[in-house]
């Protein structure tokens, strides 16, 4: 990037986390790092039913922990 004050994406992420009300970094999220900051659901049938009602697609993460 040019000579602008370049801000690393992770720092940007932490910055926006303040606005988003999402736990940033070590501010209280005990989830494994592999799962990021997303609040995940674990029940497929409930998620499918919710999707059927709202029209929102499922975002399904298949992940190993520890990864």
């Amino acid at each position, binding site marked *: 990037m040019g000579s602008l004050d370049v801000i690393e994406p992770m720092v940007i992420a932490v910055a926006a986390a303040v606005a988003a009300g999402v736990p940033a970094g070590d501010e209280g999220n005990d989830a494994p790092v592999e799962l990021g900051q997303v609040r*995940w659901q674990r029940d497929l049938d409930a998620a499918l039913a919710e999707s059927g009602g709202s029209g929102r697609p499922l975002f399904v993460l298949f992940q190993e922990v520890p990864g």
Partner: protein
Amino acid sequence: MGFGSGPLSHPLLVEAIEERFIPLLVFNNRDGTDARLLQRFGEPAWNNPVVRFLDGRGGDVIPRRDSVWTGDALAARMLAALRAAGREVPRWLELATEELAATRPRRAVLAMHCFWEGEGVLGALDGVIATRAGFVGAEEVVEVVYDPAPARYEALVEAAQRLERPGSVYCADDEQLAVARRIAGDRAVRRDVEVRTAPDADRKRALRASPLWWVPMTPLQQSRVNGALARGEDPTPWLSPRQAALGRRLAEAAREAPVELGRPPAESLADLAAYAAHVRALEVRSAPPGSGPRDGGASRR
């Protein structure tokens, strides 16, 4: 940076995943329900992370793809899934995708009579990732970081030449010079200049005068919001709903009394924990009496 600490922790992507999708986690290295779901969807165990987008019947909204581990690639898939599902694609998510995809941006330095106007106009152009008001010698300039898609430098120079009393176009190489000469004539000079940053009060002038200044944003969001405010347009399409909600709360608080949160977020990224504490304290102080503790760190004058 890993998938979890990178794309899955980018707040704008997190917000989109939580609000525009239904996030579901399936461990690919556990027995029981997880193992049964792996079998149902034909996913391998002990695999690298895979994201699939499903409809309410469990069918893929867009074709499954492996090895999507970067922020821009994931964000592009999210946009594609929303479109395929017939859902609204928010402008702020498109903007985040654009910013994440700009991995090899270039730099332009353009002089003008007034960098307040320059930052407002240039920061609103497609392909502009970030702007910085400053000086080259005594000239007011705007340094622009842009995604070098075809014709974007040309559009930048053209826009700068339409400003009141345009100044020099400082070209870092012969390629920029050839384009700039066609548009700006002798004002285009081949010189790789250092830009001296303008005083804080002169940077992102329109945004700085707004309560939105206190809302943490990415550099590209700042450029777009500053540009919208400079033109008297509604900036909220560039903000996520969570950012916009914070902006509304800050605006309400500012109507009661001037608000000083501490150092502005864009300038204090190394001290975000303190900034976040300021914001939370402001919210507590803005709440009705008796609705929460009043020992926050924000000061209101």
